[in-house]
């Protein structure tokens, strides 16, 4: 049977446009909110996920990657002595202060890695090289943070914690969950740019944040993990996956940030759904006698429901395409501003299914009303 729904929309383009707008609104809000959340989640554990370490060692009860407390640096050697450990590298994360050209300060997160090592996450460099970190006062920042740090370019000299630093490279897409800019530097300079105690003669001794552990070939992960935990007091050993999960869980659930994003996405769905539902209902009510005619001509509820469903799904389809296009535009604009909005294929499929369900659900009110239409009404109009 021909699509009466499509023809109804064609004859009433303004109303159809409003319904499509409702779908676009819902699609954009869901895609961007969830995409942003996915981007943040990705960022939250990016450095863990991309590291090449088999185990991460920290102080006990670390809630998230970003908030670890220092551990005595000498434990590094005890870890290295555990059977099954191939080698250990330091990896330090500390908060610091970046002096802006305007005279103000910006918080930053100094990521100090072993520039000769192999276990730290690879930097996604678009300018410069990791070897450049050997240079005096060298730091690498993310392209998305350049504006935030005072329109910085490669080669610029800056000040971190009142110490001179020089930008020698740029990464791309390496942002933190908190949007605090990452400053990548060598372990040695990291001690100068952060608040870690580097003096091994001081009462607290030299400190580190994480130890990245590579296992020897054939070593059992759990055995080594248990051996470190039981043999070295005051440390907690995580697999890459468990630490990544703990970090994501902290930001998403314990801080409530994830729920906030999801609530906004659900709200978008509700508002979009109500708009589509109201438009379809208004179109149905306007054409109630015509549905009565269809019933009188022998059309069943299946054929009549198809008219409304077609209208809903056509609006949904058009709205979905426009909404996704808009979402990509917003994602591009967000990327330029240093915010990651991830739109993977899975999200697109999910949004498409949600849109189809939304439009079907929005059609239900009209269909329920149409069930009550008597064919006899055609003789009274």
């Amino acid at each position, binding site marked *: 049977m021909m699509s009466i729904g499509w023809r109804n929309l064609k004859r009433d383009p303004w109303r159809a446009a409003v319904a499509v707008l409702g779908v676009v609104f819902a699609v954009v809000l869901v895609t961007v909110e969830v995409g942003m959340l996915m981007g943040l989640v990705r960022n939250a554990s990016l450095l863990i996920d991309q590291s090449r370490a088999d185990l991460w060692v920290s102080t006990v009860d670390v809630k998230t990657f970003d908030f670890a407390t220092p551990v005595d640096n000498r434990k590094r050697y005890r870890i290295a002595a555990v059977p099954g450990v191939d080698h250990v590298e330091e990896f330090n994360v500390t908060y610091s202060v970046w002096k802006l050209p305007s005279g103000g300060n910006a918080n930053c997160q100094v990521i100090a890695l072993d520039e000769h090592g192999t276990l730290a996450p690879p930097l996604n460099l678009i300018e410069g090289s990791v070897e450049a970190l050997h240079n005096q006062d060298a730091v690498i920042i993310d392209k998305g943070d350049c504006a935030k740090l005072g329109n910085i370019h490669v080669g610029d000299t800056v000040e971190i914690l009142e110490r001179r630093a020089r930008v020698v490279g740029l990464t791309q897409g390496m942002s933190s969950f908190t949007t605090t800019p990452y400053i990548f530097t060598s372990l040695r300079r990291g001690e100068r740019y952060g608040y870690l105690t580097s003096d091994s003669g001081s009462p607290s001794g030299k400190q580190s944040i994480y130890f990245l552990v590579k296992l020897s070939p054939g070593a059992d992960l759990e055995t080594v993990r248990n051996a470190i935990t039981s043999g070295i007091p005051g440390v907690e050993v995580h697999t890459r996956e468990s630490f990544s999960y703990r970090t994501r869980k902290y930001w998403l659930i314990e801080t409530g940030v994830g729920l906030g994003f999801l609530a906004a996405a659900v709200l978008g769905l509700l508002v979009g759904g109500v708009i589509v539902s109201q438009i379809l209902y208004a179109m149905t009510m306007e054409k109630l006698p015509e549905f009565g005619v269809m019933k*009188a001509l022998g059309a069943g509820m299946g054929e009549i429901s198809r008219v409304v469903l077609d209208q809903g799904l056509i609006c949904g389809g058009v709205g979905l395409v426009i909404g996704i296009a808009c979402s990509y535009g917003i994602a591009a604009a967000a990327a330029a501003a240093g915010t990651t909005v991830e739109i993977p294929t899975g999200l697109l499929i999910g949004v498409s299914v949600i849109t189809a369900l939304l439009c079907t659900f929005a059609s239900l009110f009209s269909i329920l009303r149409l069930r009550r239409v008597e064919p*006899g009404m055609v*003789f009274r109009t």
Partner: protein
Amino acid sequence: MTPTISVRSVSKHYAGGESWAVRGISLSVFPAEVTVLMGPSGSGKTTLLSMIGGVLTPTEGSLSVCGVELSGCDESQLQSFRRGQIGFIFQSFNLLSSLTALENIELALSLRGKGPSTAAELLDHVGLAAKAQAYPMELSGGQRQRIGVARALAGDPPVLLADEPTAALDAFQGRRVMDLLRTRARESGTTVLVVTHDPRVREFADRVIEMEDGKLKRIVRRVRPEQAEDGQWLVSRTGTIVAETAST
């Protein structure tokens, strides 16, 4: 001749209604004839037509149309009955506004499980081939009603039920529509039942059923010229046919 439509002691009382819309009606309608159901407003004509068309169920009595006993049918059986046996023509045309003239006919064909190939032929039959792509709003009342007739004819239903088909038309357009219906009855043996209070329709009737206050007043039958004696009409109230001298 076997009647296509048999109505036996049918009554209808609407829920909440004060009186009976139709009370104790019995009548027969025959194939290849145009039967006109006449009476003043509120006499129960349209209610009776709705029951014959399977869109209303009688409170009492029974009806059979094309051999289908409607009283025992559930909604899905009635739907199937309407789809297969009945072509409806409405006073206010009731064409689907978002479909073109051709598509309105194609819809009826599609509901009857027929392909769209005869739609253009039907449009041509009602003299509107040139208006195939016009939307109802772009057509005059007469043209819309002729589209309505073409839609009712789609799929060759054995029964055509028309509710005031000339009420919204001028005399010329009204005659044209009634001509179409009479031709259909004559040429295809279709049973045509027309509800009207338009006296001009009477001249197209083979049989006139008059109603008043929900009851049958009388049945008048036109006789063929060779059968006519004193006049053109025969009258029956109770089934006995008598001649009526003054008519048309």
